């Protein structure tokens, strides 16, 4: 079972990202589970969401404390939230940032085995005209982890957002897929 934890801020779509990732894996024949941190969400406040992916039905019903993969939608969270808390040995961290690998590693409490950096905000502003990074970052997740194909992510995005909005968001994921820096540490 692969466990993924998303960190974002209320309104950035972390919960939707968790759902779309689950939906993409489901399209590839996997069993999935996606859920928000069971909190009271407010716009701008730190938000956590989770996805589980497995080859067999998922029975466990708890939050994720030891993720294999951490995805950070908002770079400012690195200053206030320990995003690597509980990260498994050999784990991957994917961050939306303009900063360099060195600058980011300074902010992480635990060094991951793999670090992926993408300017999802820049891509979202360019492609969508809005700083909503949840679909772009999923392109980076596909690239960095190989958990799901980019096409599955794009299909799941188009399933969530219809028409031109779906196309644009799928494009954002593709841009991110092609512009993610991956560092084995």
């Amino acid at each position, binding site marked *: 079972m692969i466990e993924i934890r998303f960190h974002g801020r209320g309104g950035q779509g972390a919960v939707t990202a968790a759902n779309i990732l689950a939906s993409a894996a489901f399209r590839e024949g996997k069993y*999935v589970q996606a859920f928000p941190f069971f909190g009271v969400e407010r716009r701008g406040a730190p938000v956590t969401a989770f996805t589980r992916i497995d080859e067999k039905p998922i029975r*466990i019903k708890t939050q994720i404390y030891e993720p294999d993969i951490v995805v950070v939608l908002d770079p400012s969270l690195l200053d206030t939230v320990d995003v690597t808390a509980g990260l498994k040995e050999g784990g991957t961290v994917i961050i939306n940032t303009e900063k360099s690998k060195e600058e980011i590693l300074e902010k992480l409490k635990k060094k991951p085995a793999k670090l992926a950096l993408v300017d999802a905000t820049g891509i979202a502003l360019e492609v969508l005209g809005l700083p909503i990074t949840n679909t772009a970052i999923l392109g980076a997740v596909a690239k960095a982890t190989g958990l799901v194909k980019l096409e599955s992510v794009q299909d799941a995005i188009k399933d969530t957002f219809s028409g031109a909005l779906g196309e644009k968001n799928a494009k954002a994921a593709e841009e991110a897929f092609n512009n993610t820096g991956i560092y084995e540490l």
Partner: protein
Amino acid sequence: MTEYKPIRKVVSGNYAAAYAAKHARVQVVAAYPITPQTSIIEKIAEFIANGEVENLQYVPVESEHSAMAACIGASATGARAFTATSAQGLALMHEMLHWAAGARLPIVMVDVNRAMAPPWSVWDDQTDSLAQRDTGWMQFYAENNQEVYDGVIMAFKVAETVNVPAMIVESAFILSHTYDVVEMIPQELVDEFLPPRKPLYTLTDFDNPISVGALATPNDYYEFRYKLAKAHEEAVKVIKDVGNEFGEMFGRDYSEMIEKEHIDDADFVFMGMGSLMGTVKEAVELLRKEGYKIGYAKVRWFRPFPKEELREIASKVNGIAVLDRNFSFGQEGILFNEAKGVLYSAKSKPVMKNYIVGLGGRDFTVDDVRKIAEDMKKVIEKGEPDVEVDWYHLKR
């Protein structure tokens, strides 16, 4: 029967409930929004707005009390009626729950378990539904989104057979807002399993006029209660038959009112209801690999209570750890209390300990199951619990 080809979707527990109501071809839905139930009725409203359902009347009301009143009126005319609520909303419905059961109306409701306020909480806790224990409603606790979907469809069949309303209970957020894979049944096969309701009496059969909710003097009231009690007894058999039929048609067997595993070689079992049992199942498999001789008994139906099944389980194990995400003040966990009552007359009485867990949505984890297993091992060695009721999750 047409060949069964399930439609697999990734949906939340609440959407599973809404799809099940749609597939059951409910005719009247009356509801009032409350977190975390709201997305059930929003989804049903969306089905109506999109023209995906025919012959479904949605009745917006100003309170949960009125929602149940509207369902009672609809059901008395012979319609298939559905509603959903949570916590304070269910409490506000309380009076009407008696009216529905007393009038023997087979309404089906989803309650999304949510902690009662104060203090204000929107998270999972079973005390809201268990406080409706004596209203005469049947109660089914779902472990996962699939059981929410299957439960609603089966509940209509059971309810309409014995003329008793049924509540399908799911966990706040842990199921209601969690997306998971659900196998849905094609409409024509749901229709085959659950044909249109055939009411014994209706308010609109003007050739055979009836009265609903009339006065019963001391000369009659007693017999009405007896009949409702007998209907619950009959429901035990009907639930098993319907659960078996469901299994034969769709491959998921619900003939056991208590789903159990490893009972025959278990030293002790975990017993509980609802979503926390998913985590227990996962943990039990893990702990068995480490040498623990344990099993689980998941109580699906709390009303009618599966007395015989529980006595049989008790006859095979040395101990039962009862997990209650609920509490009856001045007493103990409610399932624990019920189980002890049932086992008083059993020949074999296992050692029992009550663990109060996860109230108000506190996460109940695999590690918690491990710690309770370690504790329960000591309880059995000693032959009696250190304390009968353990507030396990208390911050110490």
